[in-house]
């Protein structure tokens, strides 16, 4: 294997409902830094139906080149056709690095590609770097349930591949003046030869989605019971935020799984995160540690959550939270009124 034949950093770009997935924009940001260090190009690989239209967005967020496979057969993500397209692209253009979002389809595709090429694949990376001279990718990831971090290398194979956790890398601010090269690609694929068919897609309501909320009020086992947990719902409602939960709460059946924050739940990055009656186990913390402002309320002064918060109150949630609800009920209307007034002045 001649490593010099392999050039460029690639991002596998996911498009959902005509929009580039946030994780792909984050990866373009991370990929740009790697490409600059290696003085090479950053490429996005786009596979889908009617996806060519998003190429300009990829340039604005840092890509130099976009490879496009646009065909009705790519309507829905399926391993087989997507894998064939990406393999075709790899064999033709030989990248040095390929990054994928650690999403259901990103992980699925990356695993298939790694097996076929074959090459190494680092899972769920949270820290990325590259050696300027050798091009060796340094991909670090949590393992053993977040108890340790490990740096994984792939020294003898190219391309080097990694899936990257959503919400840990930062997208660049879009630059509308940036443009790049679109390379249209094609492979022969026939629907009759495909062994899987997507019969139906069922979307669940947005309301339950905590990964997009600005404010999350999360409760833990410390709320004592399903009834006690209602206090979390009440505070969330007053603040206009979403409800989060620890795994133990989900397992106790107080709330549905898609409210679970953490390693085996959702990773969140709200502006404000409340952790109430949550001990702060590492598996919970990895899912919320990138929140802008973390507030912990716990009656145990030694609870590990106080190590991972910005502000903490040591106290009983059943005394503190009702006070908070009451005070916010007074203050928020005042803020709303003031904001309304300002708008009124601006309009006048």
């Amino acid at each position, binding site marked *: 294997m001649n490593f010099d034949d392999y050039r460029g950093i690639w991002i596998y770009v996911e498009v959902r409902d005509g929009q580039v997935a946030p994780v792909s924009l984050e990866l373009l940001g991370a990929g740009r830094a790697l490409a600059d260090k290696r003085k090479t190009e950053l490429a996005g690989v786009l596979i889908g139906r009617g996806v060519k239209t998003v190429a300009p967005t990829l340039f604005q967020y840092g890509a130099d080149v976009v490879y496009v496979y646009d065909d009705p057969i790519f309507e829905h993500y399926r391993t087989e056709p997507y894998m064939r397209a990406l393999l075709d692209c790899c064999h033709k253009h030989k990248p040095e690095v390929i990054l994928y979002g650690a999403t259901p389809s990103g992980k699925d595709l990356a695993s298939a590609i790694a097996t076929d090429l074959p090459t190494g694949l680092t899972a769920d990376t949270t820290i990325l770097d590259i050696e300027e001279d050798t091009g060796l990718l340094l991909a670090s990831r949590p393992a*053993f349930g977040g108890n*340790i*971090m490990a740096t994984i290398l792939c020294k003898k194979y190219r391309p080097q591949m990694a899936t990257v956790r959503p919400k840990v890398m930062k997208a660049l601010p879009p630059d509308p003046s940036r443009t790049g090269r679109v390379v249209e690609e094609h492979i022969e694929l026939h629907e009759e030869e495909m*062994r899987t068919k997507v*019969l139906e897609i069922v979307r669940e309501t947005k309301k339950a989605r905590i990964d997009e909320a600005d404010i999350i009020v999360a409760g833990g086992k410390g709320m004592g019971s399903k009834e006690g947990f209602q206090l979390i719902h009440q505070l969330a409602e007053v603040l*206009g935020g979403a409800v989060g939960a620890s795994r133990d709460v989900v397992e106790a059946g107080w709330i549905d*799984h898609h409210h679970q924050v953490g390693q085996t739940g959702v990773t969140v990055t709200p502006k404000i995160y409340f952790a109430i009656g949550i001990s702060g186990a590492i598996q919970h913390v990895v899912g919320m*540690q990138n929140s802008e402002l973390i507030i912990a309320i716990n009656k145990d002064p030694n609870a590990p959550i106080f190590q991972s918060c910005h502000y903490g109150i040591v106290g009983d949630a059943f005394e503190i939270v009702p006070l908070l609800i009451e005070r916010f009920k007074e203050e928020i209307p005042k*803020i709303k009124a003031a904001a309304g007034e300002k708008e009124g002045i601006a309009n006048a």
Partner: protein
Amino acid sequence: MLHIVACIKQVPDTKIIKMNPKTNTMDRASAPAILNPYDAHAVEEAVRLKKKYGGTVSVLTMGPPPAVKAIKKCIELGADEGYMISDRAFAGADTLATSYALTKALEKIAKQRPIDLIICGKMTIDGDTGQVGPGIARRLNIPPLTGVNKVVEVNKEKGYAIVHRKLEDGYEVVKSQLPCLFTVEKDINDISFAPLPNMIKAARYQPTIWTADDLENVDRKQLGLKGSPTIVSKVWAPPKPEGGKILTGTKEQQVDELLSILLEQKELFS
């Protein structure tokens, strides 16, 4: 009659794991070994399908000799047969080498009894890559269906399966040709209690154990550390966060201080 093979792994219980603060390594002895929780759901689903459609459930693991215990656990859950591949030659395998070795074992099992369906856990709780299942599917050239949280139908006569696959914001209903491979989510089922006869069978059960030499057409360069493109170069404990400011005073004072901190972000509340 269906032949379903569940792939299972014995893992350290990461809930109980302790780190050695001096060496920053994991104190493996401190953690009891358990059946990977996701794999328990894989076996449970295989047993449920067997009850519904008839057939045999085999389980396969690659691991050191004590991993026999994880196989016994699966027999308790209702599996019929257990296979283990165990050899120094497999040691240090990353996901590529793991899926290679497991595939060679699956090919040998299939010679005795053709396989219709393979079920893996979504991921393990130690390596937790989720890459082994899709890797096996690719090597056997069968469709991988990852993130399955409901099996609607398995139709051996007509040669297809229909499942729900979890997406970020919902799920999709997919039809696939058989044979295929599922990786399953935890919410696919609840683990049943093991009935007494299963427990007795499990206590006496001795799985089939193969070494690398027992497998056919094995390229030794693809096994274990040698066959692993990835290497773990450095392991460290995640940095301890510094900790935040603990508010003081009476409850009312603490709440007031918190309020003034939060209300700095006025735009969030307007």
